[in-house]
């Protein structure tokens, strides 16, 4: 949690994983999120996000991620996080799967 500066983050909600409990909406100090007509959390004021981390730490369904904004061209992978382009993250329904680890015991 560095400086509480606005406009540094991308706020990504994965609607397939969100159950609409409303915790992120109720406790976000900057009122970034709202519940939409489908009862899911939706980003309304991304530029207000102060990167406090509350939503990420408290989403019981791991359905929300805060990422730094990058200058990589749209469609290009983000070299820092291993995620694909954060611009495109907004449109994801569910989080990307983690990269598989190499098997330490290949004989198995």
């Amino acid at each position: 949690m560095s400086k509480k500066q606005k406009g540094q983050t991308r706020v990504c909600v994965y609607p397939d994983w969100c159950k609409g409990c409303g915790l992120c909406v109720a406790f976000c100090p900057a009122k970034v999120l709202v519940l939409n007509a489908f009862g899911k959390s939706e980003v309304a004021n991304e530029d207000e996000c102060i990167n406090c981390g509350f939503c990420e730490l408290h989403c019981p369904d791991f359905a929300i991620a805060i990422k730094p904004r990058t200058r990589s061209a749209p469609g290009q992978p983000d070299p820092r996080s291993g995620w694909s382009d954060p611009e495109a993250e907004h449109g994801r329904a569910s989080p990307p799967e983690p990269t598989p680890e190499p098997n330490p015991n290949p004989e198995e």
Partner: protein
Amino acid sequence: MADVTQLIHDYLRHNKKFPHVFCAGCGHGIVLGSLIRSVHALGLPKDDVVLVAGIGCSGRMAVYVDFNTVHTTHGRALTFATGIKMANPKLKVICVMGDGDALSIGGNHLIHAARRNIGVTALILNNQIYGMTGGQCSSATPQGDISMTTPFGSLEKAFDIADMCKAAGASYVARGTSFHAIQLDRLISSAIMHPGFSVVEVFSPCPTQYGRKNKFRNAVDMYKWLKSNTVKVETLKEPDRKPEDGRIPIGVFRDVEEPGLEERYFELQRKLMGQNR
């Protein structure tokens, strides 16, 4: 704050069905996240961690996370955990139980694990109810509260889990909540690194079976309640007395270094083997 969620996803078994079974707003999901962050912060390899779970909503945690996991029987998780720790003391054994699991059916195992000071971490998810089976009252349901089996209010007093574990001899005893996630990460990390029996009781809201019957309109209200009805134990003038305003103390209640049962056992083994030489 970047990558908190990504980190959690790296520890989940993505071949299981997601989103997980917990209801919307269930505190158990937050505790699962906290457990993953704590293990990650300690730098423990996944293969050195064993998650032993009982039966209940809380027990479902073992299904989703990519450690060594054992989903045991109702109330007996600590007995499996004890066996695993004695057989291979190098493993970090974490035992996830509900309040019904740990105190009602499994109460005897809990006090004896504490008395023996076996080097296991008991993570007790206290939602004050039997969540999974439809909301029957547990031995942690507060007196006067409504449940499926106490429609006019429970007549019995609830166990104070932290007090009980302290009295039974656990060498690390702490209490946190699903609302205080950063503190919970710290409590779970220190419990895992603690040499003897460590207990972390977590107040973890059950909006479906407990909240609805007890005048909480929704999950958010339960977290607001946790926010305003808890107090950090270190800010209390008399930490050993219950606050008169009824707030629940959270934090570390006991942290003493005492060798765990497995250490004493291997010490004895070394001694006896030396004598026979």
